[in-house]
């Protein structure tokens, strides 16, 4: 059974928000749209977004890590938002594991969003229905889009390629390999929601210098014939006959 998902590589995410706005522009004019913006040019502008990039600081100066953290619906395998929906508007597709909302069935009761520990769902304040990441379901199967671009908008836009997309149930997929080889992990594993989306942690490259690497026969200084001063003290050389 297929389970499509995103794998987000925190090792290369620079927090540029490309995924945030490419998502917005694709989806506002797509099947999930329009995506409302309230007060877009006034005080406290707010709107519907499926994807946000957050920033965290880890540790204390100077041992600080700045972590940029993109977050959207994790398409949980055991999605807690689905069974609680009274109308069946929230559903998880059998064929690819995408969690979707049928806007025509949604009554805007928000119960699904309460049942999501990740804050991945947002009520569209204009349509008053619950909205969320669709993994660009209206892109990824669209035959009119070139095959290598049949990916969620956030994935094709991401400048650092920090977002991988694929089937996490296929052990040979790019995403499964990335999870396996790079310590991919899930958010809030304590709730047993089994998020399909995974995150890859920071990995550090270090350099070790051996002392003898600083003293080499081919040191260019040796070509400059730096002559050491002659010793003024009496030496054995002066005595031995």
């Amino acid at each position, binding site marked *: 059974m297929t389970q499509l998902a995103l794998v987000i590589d925190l*090792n290369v*995410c*620079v*927090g*540029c*928000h*490309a995924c*945030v*706005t*490419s998502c*917005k*522009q*694709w989806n*506002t*004019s797509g*099947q999930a749209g*329009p*995506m*409302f*913006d309230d*007060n*877009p*040019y*006034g*005080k*406290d502008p707010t709107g519907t977004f499926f994807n946000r990039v957050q920033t965290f*600081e880890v*540790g204390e*100066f*100077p041992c*600080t890590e*700045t972590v940029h953290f993109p977050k959207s619906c994790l398409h949980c395998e055991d999605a807690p938002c689905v069974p609680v929906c009274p109308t069946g508007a929230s559903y998880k597709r059998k064929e690819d594991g995408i969690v*979707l*909302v*049928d806007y*025509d069935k949604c009554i805007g009761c928000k119960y699904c969003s309460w049942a999501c520990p990740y804050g991945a769902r947002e009520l569209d304040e*204009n349509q008053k229905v619950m909205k969320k990441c669709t993994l660009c379901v209206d892109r990824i199967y669209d035959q009119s889009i*070139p095959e290598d*671009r049949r990916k969620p*908008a956030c994935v*094709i*836009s991401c*400048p*650092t*390629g920090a977002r991988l997309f694929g089937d996490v149930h296929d052990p040979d997929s790019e995403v499964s390999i990335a999870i396996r080889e790079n310590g991919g992990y899930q958010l809030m594993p304590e709730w047993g929601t089994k998020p399909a989306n995974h995150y890859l942690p920071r*990995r550090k*490259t*270090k*350099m070790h*210098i051996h002392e003898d*690497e*600083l003293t*080499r026969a081919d*040191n*260019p*200084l*040796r*070509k*400059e014939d*730096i002559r050491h001063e002659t010793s003024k003290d009496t030496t054995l050389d002066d005595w031995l006959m």
Partner: protein
Amino acid sequence: MNTTTEQPVHEEVRTTTCYMCACRCGIKVHLKNGEVRFIEGNPDHPLNQGVLCAKGSSGIMKQYSPARLTKPLRRKAGAERGRGEFEDISWDEAFAIMEERLAKIRATDPKKFALFTGRDQMQALTGLFAKNYGTPNYAAHGGFCSVNMAAGLIYTIGGSFWEFGGPDLDRAKLFVMIGTAEDHHSNPLKIAISKFKRNGGRFISINPVRTGYSAIADEWIPIKPGTDGALLLALIHEIIKQGLYDRDFLTKYSNAAELVNMDPKSPEYGMFVRFEVPPEEGCFDAQNKLWWDRELNRPVSTHTLGVDPRLLGEFKLSDGTPVKPAFQLLAERVEQYTPEWAADITGIPAETIRRLAHEMGITARDEKIELPIAWTDAWDVEHKTITGNPVAFHAMRGLAAHSNGFQTIRALGILMSILGTIDRPGGFRHKAPFPRPIPPCPKTPKGPEDVQPNTPLNGMPLGWPADPDDLFVDEQGNPVRIDKAFSWEYPLSVHGLMHNVITNAWRGDPYPIDTLFIFMANMSWNSTMNAEQVRKMLNDKDENGEYKIPFLIVADAFQSEMVAFADLVLPDTTYLERHDVMSMLDRPISEFDGPVDSVRIPVLPPTGECKPFQEVLIELGSRLKLPVFVNADGSRKYRDYPDFITNFETAPGSGIGFLAGWRGKGGEKSMRGEPNPNQWQMYEKNNCVFHYHLPKSYQYMRNWNQGYLQWAQAHGLTRYAEPINIHIYSEVLQKFRLAAQGKTDGRQPPQHLRKRIETYFDPLPFFYEPLESQLSDKHKYPLNAVTQRPMAMYHSWDSQNAWLRQIHTYNYLYVNPKTAAAQGIADGDWIWVESMHGKVRCMARFSEAVEPGTVWTWNAIGKAAGAWNLDPNANEAKQGFLLNHVISEELPAHEAGAHVSNSDPVTGQAAWYDVRVRIYKAGPEEEKVTWPQFDPVPPAPGTPPRRAWQNYFAGKFNRGDK
């Protein structure tokens, strides 16, 4: 999901080039019923390879922004400047006003017309207009952006970062980023850094703040702002001390081994010893200097085959002249710059500095790359392989925007050079048209006599001085330009000093002007220092009640803060509505492997009466009968901008025009060829981009690559096919120093500037405290204040963007908790930031990712009330703030003068990051609103209504059927 079926709609996809920042990515714009459905990165574009950043992905909201100017506007009679009270007029009227005024100025005193532009990407055209008009008063934004980075490296290695060159992260093993804003060369750098990391490269970031790219560095080394020079010099010290430099590279490809005259009594003191003077010198380094032969122990002509010269030591020529190799002078210079010395200044432990130097040196030496690419150097020596020392650097405004930036960047160039990384795999690589001679050939006029009525300027408006005689000054040594560029105050100000134009014009120093034409630059707000006073200057009148700057024209696509001050407003189009070229004559988008240029082709019709600024220039140029825009009989030469681009040649029959691709009658030639009437269509069919792939053997070592140099000469990129040796030791600087010391026959600086020139025109890099620090009370103002550019915003442009402004709606001052605690400041408190020039009220946000001696904020988020057609109560105006209010455009009076620019003394680079501040808690009784506040401006006539809410859906948005 909506299951309702859509009505059949007209959909199409068109390619063009992004302009949400200066990166210039290729984009595909999907249209639905004539509205933008989706903007995606073009996968077939070499620059962004299909990706697109947050700004590019928000182009829709720029296109439909309520801040858009859509009609030419004239300030209402009797209305004060700055109030934003306008009436709309026709383009005919607007042109008539400009034609009459500018024709009169041109016929009398053309320098009274000043044209200054922002980050406009069309400097080749604007410069051409200014030159043909005959005014010296032209520049773009470079002087207040990163001219130190351009000049510092171009005067050292013949190229620089970003458009000019960059780190080859494909092959680098160690990448050191120092003082880089998050937006510079945004997408290509992001692509490269992530690939680099995935390939196991080691990434070190040196920056006072850890955000953006620094976040994913393997190691973050916090540094105090303005001290990068000290760090770089200490690194050079350690690398030389340990013998970790690339001796072979330095010998062959730099002036390190060339002998410098050390006779203090000689007029040639500090100059290279020359064995002959060629009959004709061009703007290239003649190969007439000497090495000291190790084996024969005597001087020998440089690059004599089989000779291994000395890099260290002191020698005497047969005539008794004491000489030293340039490298010896460098070694002597850095002797004092020990890691311990730098530790105190930079805040970086000496051990870390030492380790950094060792990592660089050992990686460069032991991880060498050998590519099996044969090439021939400029001295006819054939090489079987290309060698690379895989240590790459990237640097930008963090180094540049300090008044010691030029020398700091010289130090960076020298560090990169002694590691042997210039135009080699894994190191720094040039992008065409670079490398260029050191310095490049174009020169400005030399004196006031070169500015004549009704005559084109005798020289380029901006150039590259090679010695004091190239300065643009009058007989007394006073500046000819309004911004005092190329004067003794800032001799190598190769990008001008736009940041001083308004202040100088207001003061009438060096002279008053009549008309100031500003294109796409927010000079009353985030692009000016001292914004509050500059706003007053723009509105200031003389005793006769006339404005001190009599006429102000502003061309912009949006209602920026600057628009409110205009007498005449010209509405520009957005990038989706116009033709543009990223030209080889300007700043193209070349790749390491060859020249690349690109175009914009309109995907939408202009909104309202918007007119591309290029069309304005061509119309105006034609009306004013500027030679380049008219035929011999005075009739109009070019129908419009696309026609101009197609047919313009740098000289009749030169075959070189704005675009390098698909030249020749049928588009069969590239780089050079006759105009092709179908050139635009060919660009359009080819993703709007032209990419010339150099043969592999021409892709490296281009400063000295005979094949490449000859190719570049043949294709009109350079005048000479001479090698471009790295200037470890800068004779150009020494010439200015000698002039200041009175040892030359040519031009000499005015008395009050002699010491300044002598001090800062040091042929070897040195560290000095930034000028503001030298002139301020560091105990009273203990902190450095800097700005960073958020990746989701470009300058002030994106607060009008409904999507992007939800990400950055206002800004905080980021403070290390320990620094804040010392002042009793809590996270989120309202505080004052005060410098010796002024103060602002803002909110504090704690951050562990900032060096305790530094406070910082995102640049240009704060807005003046009502500007950009935001609600006057928008967060940008009430909670957002602009640091510019505490930064002065001029230094306090000191021995160099009372009104010296707050800039680098060599290049005139605006020293944004030199400002020193203190912070303290705002009183409990104070309003929880940023300060200073300005009276709100009303929406300009013709701007679209400010929507209270919106539901964007392409194809339906503007048709009411939501």
